[in-house]
């Protein structure tokens, strides 16, 4: 028995022919075929229902799609989302920094904030702020020996729009704080340590080292939050803010074309969410530049986010 030497192996013509005659037969996946069939059937039934049921009233839908009051409502919804998101990011960042602060008092305060504003349903917070005048009749600033500098009746400034902004910003800030905190925690501690050894003070380390690195972990969940918030703003209908949903409601309350107007509303929400998703994708790619691999940091961050997700919604 000789030992085969690698560079001496020769393939006989008969063997080569036998090898090339072989064909691969894919495994039969009957489950997938059945599933595909069912999915197609369901899709067909849905489309048929949409097309054939006159109650959908597609011409009415098209007629209202660009209706001036729907457009005004859409504008208000977009503005609410933008203003609330910006405020929520600012407040959330402050709360997140407090949550990682060395001071136990600041940490507890921030913890209580998140606990409260994430725990109480947004709708209840909204109605609470709207009715703030029941609790505090007027807001005034009085300095001893100087007198009252100003005094405003709560009802004068707690307009529906203003209370919507206050309520939803504070609520959303609770979620943003947790996202930003998870981002900060995902930056390896060695980064802050090295900065500290180079003589950088705490504030500078946060601003120049920790927060910028936290950004790329913070961005994807922030995009999701923005999309959630867009939809959450429909709650302001309850306190008569003229948003997208409210404007549709006020039309169908008059004309009883309920379903077509709900479709108009759904269309616009879907359209905006789609645009936001595309924007989110590009933003994430931009901030992922200095690291595109899935590294242990990313995994640690995912773990942090999952644990906070479990506690929230």
């Amino acid at each position, binding site marked *: 028995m000789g030992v085969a030497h690698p560079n001496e192996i020769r393939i006989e013509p008969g063997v080569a022919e036998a090898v090339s005659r072989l064909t691969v037969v894919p495994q039969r996946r009957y489950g997938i075929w059945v599933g595909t069939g069912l999915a197609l059937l369901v899709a067909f039934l849905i489309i048929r229902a949409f097309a054939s049921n006159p109650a959908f009233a597609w011409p009415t839908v098209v007629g209202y799609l660009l209706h001036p009051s729907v457009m005004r409502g859409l504008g208000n919804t977009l503005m609410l989302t933008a203003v609330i998101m910006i405020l929520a990011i600012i407040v959330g960042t402050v709360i997140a920094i407090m949550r990682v602060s060395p001071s136990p008092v600041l940490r507890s305060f921030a913890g209580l904030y998140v606990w409260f504003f994430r725990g109480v349903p947004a709708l209840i917070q909204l109605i609470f702020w709207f009715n703030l005048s029941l609790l505090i009749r007027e807001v005034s600033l009085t300095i001893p020996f100087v007198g009252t500098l100003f005094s405003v009746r709560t009802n004068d400034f707690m307009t529906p729009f203003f209370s919507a902004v206050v309520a939803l910003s504070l609520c959303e800030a609770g979620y943003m704080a947790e996202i930003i905190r998870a981002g900060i925690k995902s930056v390896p501690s060695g980064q802050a340590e090295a*900065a500290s050894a180079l*003589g950088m003070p705490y504030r500078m380390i946060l601003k120049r080292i920790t927060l910028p690195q936290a950004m790329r972990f913070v961005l994807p969940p922030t995009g999701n939050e923005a999309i959630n918030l867009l939809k959450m703003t429909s709650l302001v209908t309850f306190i008569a803010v003229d948003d997208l949903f409210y404007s549709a409601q006020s039309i169908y309350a008059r004309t009883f074309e309920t379903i077509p107007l709900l479709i108009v509303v759904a269309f616009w929400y879907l359209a905006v969410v789609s645009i936001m998703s595309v924007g989110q994708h590009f933003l994430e790619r931009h901030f992922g530049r200095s*690291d595109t691999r899935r590294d242990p940091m990313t995994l640690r961050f995912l773990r942090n986010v999952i644990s906070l997700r479990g506690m929230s919604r």
Partner: protein
Amino acid sequence: MSDVKDENRARFGVPADSMVFARGVRKSYGPLEVLKGVDLDVPVGSVACVIGPSGSGKSTFLRCINHLEKLSAGILLVDSQFVGYDLRDDRLYEVKDDLLCQRRAETGMLFQSFNLFSHMTVMENLIEAPTQVRRTPPDQAKAEAEILLRRVGLLDKVDRYPRELSGGQQQRVAIARAMAMKPKVLLFDEPTSALDPELVGEVLQVMRDLAESGMTMVVVTHEIGFAREIGDQLVFMDGGVIIERGAPREMIANPVSPRTREFLSRVL
């Protein structure tokens, strides 16, 4: 300034050429005492190598030198000055953060895991502290950074991000980054322990060049060969105290303490 130094020298018996001066340094975390009275003298321009098993307190001691850890007892002077305190009437007043940061910047530190800022390029890593902490004009900081990068042989990597460099290159950049603050002393915390064996040499070479240029260095290391070749003194720590110290060659060849002998036999 020099008044303070003179006063400290007279008061604590600090030698005139002292860069790091430690007497009775203790450090506890709750009930756990990590350092149990460490005395050390590192003269200007010399290299002290600290060896010892993990958990012996050598890294903690290093972090005490630049006040990343506060001492529980004892004194630690860098260039005859306290890093984190001002001494007045037998009281050590903790200094304000900005002053602490200024003084801490005078001791450079290198880490096992390099800790380059991962969102910055090599150049940005080097000029970050000089421009932000010392307010050096960016152009000047860049010019100085280029000189340092040439010294560690990485001038061609200025625009790379840390993840694009090998471990050895990252540690060399980290050394250049520490040097950019023109420190009086460099502290190395196991600088080659996280490196693949074939990359250790290039980092040790840079450290050797630094030592030859007269840099004062305290090196916590497992590289006995480096300690023997470059070290002016070798210190063996175990259980939070210094067991033995001496000239590296003699100590490695003829350790006095049985614990030193046992440790050396395991790492050599």
